């Protein structure tokens, strides 16, 4: 492990790599500061252009994007009471009251420091835990891989608001993934299209479902609601210069930082639970144990620090299952899995075995990106808050330009653009009728792994499905899958029982 980290440190001696990290964090922060835009959208837009750069530099940039995406939402949450990203909702509770008291600079300082501590703490946990987990994962055979990938799908579907719709979307994604040539060399479901012989192209699908859909949605919703990036009446994008907390305040917040880091990392580790759940959980825990719970919601430093520490501790946690097992923690890591495939890297345990150089660079990026938050907080918070106020009629054509060009650049074919536009329209209808997009992408990414491991397992067992329950690790994932499948039903019944008791 030490050699791996040392090797990664040498890579960071290259100024170009450092620049990629800074650029990634900055772009992520800008995207997440703009309400309605996300770092996943930024990743989808930028992914096609990462072909032109080395995989290492590309992943450094993408990890920076992940961290910046969690950090930037806090700026508009404090200055405008508009959470740029879902993980920043809890930040508005105390960040905005502090801003109204004329302590906006201090609020940004505390939020930045909390983000740095939470992010670095979770990166250390990631490095230590991932190595151990990967050692176990490397022993997986086809039955374990099949049980694991099916569990990954079920875990993501189970946290969808509507699990039936989530399951259907996941299956649709798996169908898209099995198009093209299979393990036996059979051409399947390619509708006679040459472009589909090697399967549904991942990049145009991702760009279409995350970026083009935003273009169509914004056009369709023009005038209907608050525009993306527009300010509410009376809100001012001005903000004071960042101030760090005093040593006394730091001492007071030490416990909050530690609790927030642990909560954020653990929640990030759970499939599907993102920054918003982490921030809310840490905020509630802090409020419960606080000696001054009445201050929460009125500009409490503990409230602000807990939400931001936990929110920024999520990447470390969510990258553990993503890298070692190939199970994404959220939408961003689902697309990141696609990035591994696009750059010719395997997903799951094989990534750890065969590409340790890339893995340690990702770990170190997850650690170092947090340091970039400090100069951004000092020098870029004011411009970023102003960018968040950009009109839709400027912002959306910029997104469209990168989407269309990116889809074309992947294979210099207009057909790819057509595929992306098609999936953009499909995603528009999916959003309108509450069908989640993330399971489609995950299904598309995992389908080959699921099918290949299923076929190999059946060949190993002579056609018996009992192989999945007679091997301990496989049985564990089968049990977890059953648990996650029935969890939504139990949750629903619990809610019904609570409602009945209230009545």
């Amino acid at each position, binding site marked *: 492990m030490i050699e791996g980290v040392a090797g990664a440190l040498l890579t960071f001696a290259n100024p170009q790599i450092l620049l990629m990290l800074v650029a990634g964090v900055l772009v992520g922060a800008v995207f997440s500061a703009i309400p309605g835009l996300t770092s996943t959208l930024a990743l989808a837009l930028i992914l096609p252009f990462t072909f032109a750069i080395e995989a290492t530099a590309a992943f450094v940039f993408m990890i920076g994007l992940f961290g910046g995406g969690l950090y930037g939402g806090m700026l508009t949450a404090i200055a405008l009471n508009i959470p740029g990203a879902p993980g920043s909702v809890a930040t508005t509770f105390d960040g905005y009251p502090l801003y109204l008291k004329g302590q906006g600079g201090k609020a940004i300082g505390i939020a930045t420091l909390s983000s740095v501590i939470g992010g670095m703490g979770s990166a250390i946990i990631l490095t230590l835990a991932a190595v151990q987990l990967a050692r176990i994962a490397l022993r997986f055979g086809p039955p374990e891989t099949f049980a694991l990938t099916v569990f990954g799908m079920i875990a993501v579907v189970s946290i969808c608001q509507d699990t039936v719709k989530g399951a*259907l979307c996941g*299956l649709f994604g798996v*169908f898209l993934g099995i198009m093209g040539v299979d393990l*036996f060399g059979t051409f399947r479901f390619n509708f006679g299209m040459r472009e589909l012989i090697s399967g549904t192209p991942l990049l145009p699908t991702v760009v279409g479902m995350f970026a083009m859909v935003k273009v169509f949605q914004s*056009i*369709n919703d023009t005038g209907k609601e608050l525009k993306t990036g527009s300010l509410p009446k009376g809100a001012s994008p001005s903000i004071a210069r960042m101030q760090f907390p005093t040593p006394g305040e730091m001492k007071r917040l030490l416990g909050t930082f530690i609790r927030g880091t642990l909560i954020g990392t653990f929640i990030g580790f759970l499939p599907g639970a993102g920054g918003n759940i982490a921030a809310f959980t840490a905020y509630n825990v802090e409020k419960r144990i606080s000696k001054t719970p009445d201050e929460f919601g009125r500009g409490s430093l503990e409230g602000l620090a807990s939400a931001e520490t936990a929110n920024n501790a999520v990447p470390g946690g969510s990258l553990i299952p993503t890298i070692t097992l190939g199970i994404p923690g959220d939408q961003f890591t689902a697309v990141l899995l696609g990035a591994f495939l696009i750059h010719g890297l395997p997903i799951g345990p094989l990534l750890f075995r065969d590409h340790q150089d890339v893995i340690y660079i990702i770990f170190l990026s997850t650690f170092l990106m947090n340091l970039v938050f400090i100069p951004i907080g000092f020098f870029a918070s004011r411009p970023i808050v102003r960018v968040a106020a950009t009109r839709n009629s400027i912002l*959306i*054509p910029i997104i*469209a330009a990168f989407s269309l060009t990116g889809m074309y650049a992947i294979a210099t074919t207009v057909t790819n653009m057509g595929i992306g536009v098609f999936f953009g329209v499909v995603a528009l209808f999916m959003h309108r009728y509450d069908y989640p997009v993330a399971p489609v992408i995950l299904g598309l990414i995992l389908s080959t792994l699921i099918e290949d491991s299923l076929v190999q397992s059946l060949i190993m067992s002579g056609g018996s499905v009992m192989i999945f329950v007679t091997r301990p690790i496989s049985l564990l994932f089968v049990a977890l899958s059953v648990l996650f499948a029935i969890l939504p039903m139990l949750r629903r019944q619990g809610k019904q029982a609570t409602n009945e008791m209230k009545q």
Partner: protein
Amino acid sequence: MHDYIVAAILLGLAGFILTEASRFPPPPPHAMASSATFPRVIAALLVFFVILLIIRTVRRRSSNLETSGIPLNVRGVIGIASTVVYLLVVRELGFVVSTTAILAIYAILLQKERLRFLDSVVVPLIMVTIVYLMLVLLRVSIPTGILF
């Protein structure tokens, strides 16, 4: 209503998968699975969840919980239709001209009250210049068409 349409589409998809799978080659000797095995599993699961969706929709309809509404308005339809036209003409008209035009159309569709010259003309021109230079730098061949 929309859930019934989705159910019909997905049932059609399951039918298509099963029909296609029946044409795949049989399993090789001693192999317990073939190209059709996994697609059949997917089709069966699709049918199962579609049935669940229909049952739930019928129940919700009886308790008036179903949401309704037209998903697209005129702007949305024009936006998508313009994009389709763009895809059809980009090779003939060339990347620069057609992309500038589609970005300008998007910008116009995104303005509710008065049209701004900056948003409708200047920003699309700047963006096309930026992405054009990026493509040149990446050495990606761009459709030039009859114009540029």
